[in-house]
C-alpha cells in the first residue's frame, strides 16, 4: 500500500479538514495522536474551548522553553498551558462534563470503525497485552458528537472501516463522522456514506480500500 502514502491528505491535512467542522463556541476534547493536531487548524474567527479530562477547560498550546510546569499537563501527559479564562477541576467534575453530555465534540483515533458506528480503539484483544482503557469509553458514551481521524488502512494495508469490528469495542454505534487520508465519510443509518474525497482520489479507489459497502455522496 505504499502508493496510498503518495496520494490523499497527509496527517496535517486530515487534522485541518476535521477542524473545519468544529463550530464557533464548541467545547472540544481531542484524543491522543493526529487528533491533537486539530487545535492548530480551527478557522480564524472561531473560538473553541479545549477540555482535557485530567481537569482543565481552556487548554492552550505547549509551553515555551522555561515556562514548563510538570503539574500542568494534558491527558496524554504532555506539558500544556492555559488560556485566559481557563478553569481547573477534579476528575469527577471533569468526567461529569463528559458523561453528562456537556462536551460538544470529541475527535478520537481508531483501530477500527464499523458501518453501524461501532468504534474499537483501546485493545487488540491480544491476551498477552496489558489492557489499558483510560477515558475512551467515557468519551464515546457521553460526548454529543464523536468524530474519528484515522488512516484509511492499517500499515499492512487492511481496511480500518469494516462491516463489523473484530477488535474489542470501545463503544457501540457511537461514531458520527470519519476523516481519513482518502475521504470524509459519515456513519449514516444505511451505512458508510461518502461526504468528500481527498484531492486525486476517486470513489472506486476508496471503495477498494474499505471493508464494506460505501455509499456515494
Amino acid at each position, binding site marked *: 500500500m505504499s502508493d496510498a502514502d503518495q496520494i490523499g491528505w497527509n496527517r496535517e491535512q486530515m487534522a485541518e479538514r476535521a477542524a473545519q467542522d468544529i463550530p464557533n463556541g464548541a467545547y472540544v476534547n481531542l484524543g491522543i495522536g493526529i487528533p491533537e493536531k486539530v487545535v492548530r487548524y480551527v478557522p480564524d474567527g472561531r473560538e473553541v474551548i479545549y477540555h482535557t*479530562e485530567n*481537569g482543565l477547560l481552556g487548554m492552550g498550546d505547549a509551553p515555551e522553553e522555561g515556562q514548563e510546569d510538570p503539574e500542568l499537563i494534558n491527558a496524554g*501527559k504532555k506539558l500544556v498551558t492555559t488560556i485566559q479564562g481557563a478553569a481547573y477541576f477534579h*476528575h469527577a467534575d471533569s*468526567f461529569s462534563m463528559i*458523561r453528562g453530555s456537556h462536551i460538544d465534540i470529541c475527535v478520537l483515533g481508531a483501530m477500527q470503525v464499523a458501518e453501524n458506528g461501532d468504534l474499537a480503539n483501546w485493545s487488540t484483544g491480544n491476551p498477552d497485552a496489558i489492557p489499558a*482503557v483510560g477515558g475512551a469509553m467515557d468519551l464515546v*458514551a457521553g460526548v454529543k458528537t464523536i468524530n474519528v481521524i484515522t488512516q484509511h488502512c492499517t500499515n499492512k494495508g487492511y481496511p480500518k472501516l469494516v462491516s463489523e469490528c473484530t477488535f474489542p469495542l470501545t463503544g457501540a454505534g457511537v461514531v458520527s463522522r470519519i476523516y481519513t487520508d482518502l475521504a470524509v465519510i459519515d456513519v449514516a443509518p444505511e451505512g458508510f456514506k461518502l461526504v468528500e474525497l481527498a484531492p486525486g482520489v476517486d470513489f472506486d479507489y476508496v471503495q477498494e480500500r474499505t471493508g464494506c459497502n460505501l455509499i456515494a455522496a
Partner: protein
Amino acid sequence: MINKKVNSVHDAVANIKDGATVMIGGFGEAGSPIELIHALIDHGAKGLTVVNNNTGSGHVGLAALIENKRVAKMICSFPRTANSTVFPELYKKGELELELVPQGTLAERIRAGGAGVPAFYTATSVGTSLADGKEMRNIDGRDYVLEYGLKADFALIKCLKADRYGNLVYNKTARNFAPIMAMAADTTIVQTKQFVEAGDIDPEAVVTPGIFVDQIITVANPLLESELVNAGEVYP
C-alpha cells in the same frame, strides 16, 4: 485545638496495615505524593490494594511500591505509560491482580464511595467487554451498567496549600483525583508544599474542606518523578 499537622511522612503512614486499600492521588507525575509513597515503602505494609489512574514510572514512587512487592492488586484505568515497565513485567508473571476501570467510571466510583452512594448506573462501557457479567438496566430507553462505589482505608494525596483544619488548595492539573480520594478514604493523609495559617485560604477558594482530611505533613520541596526517572533513580 484542632491541628492535623504531623511531624514526619513516616508518622503519617505508620498506621497503614498489611492488606489495606490505599488510594494514591496523581495523574502520571502530576499530583503524585512521592514522599508519602516512599515513606509507605519504608513502613513496609504489604498485600495492598492500590487505586491510582496509572501504575507509575521508572523505579520510584508508585512504580517502586509495586516493584518492592507491596501491592497485591491495582485498580486503575491506564496501567501503561511511557517509562512504565515495573507493572507490566510483574503483571505478565501473574504476581499481581489488575482491575481495569474506565477513567470516568473510576472517578465516579471514588466520588460515590465518598458520598455514601453504594452504586450507580452509567452508560460508560455498555456494549464492551468491560461490562461483561455486570448488572444492566434500561432507563428511558438507554442501557446502563451498574458500578459500585469505591472506598479506601487510606488516601495519600498532594496539595499546594493546607491549613491546620485540613482545608486544601491544589496546583493546576495536579488536583485530578485528590479531592474525591480525600472524600472516599477513612484516613486521608496529605503532603502539602505550604502550611498556612487558618484564614489564609479564602473560604471561597477552598477546594477540599478540612472535614475530608486527617493528617498533614509539609514537604516544601517535593521530588519530581520525571527528574528521578530521567536520572535513573531507584527507590529505596
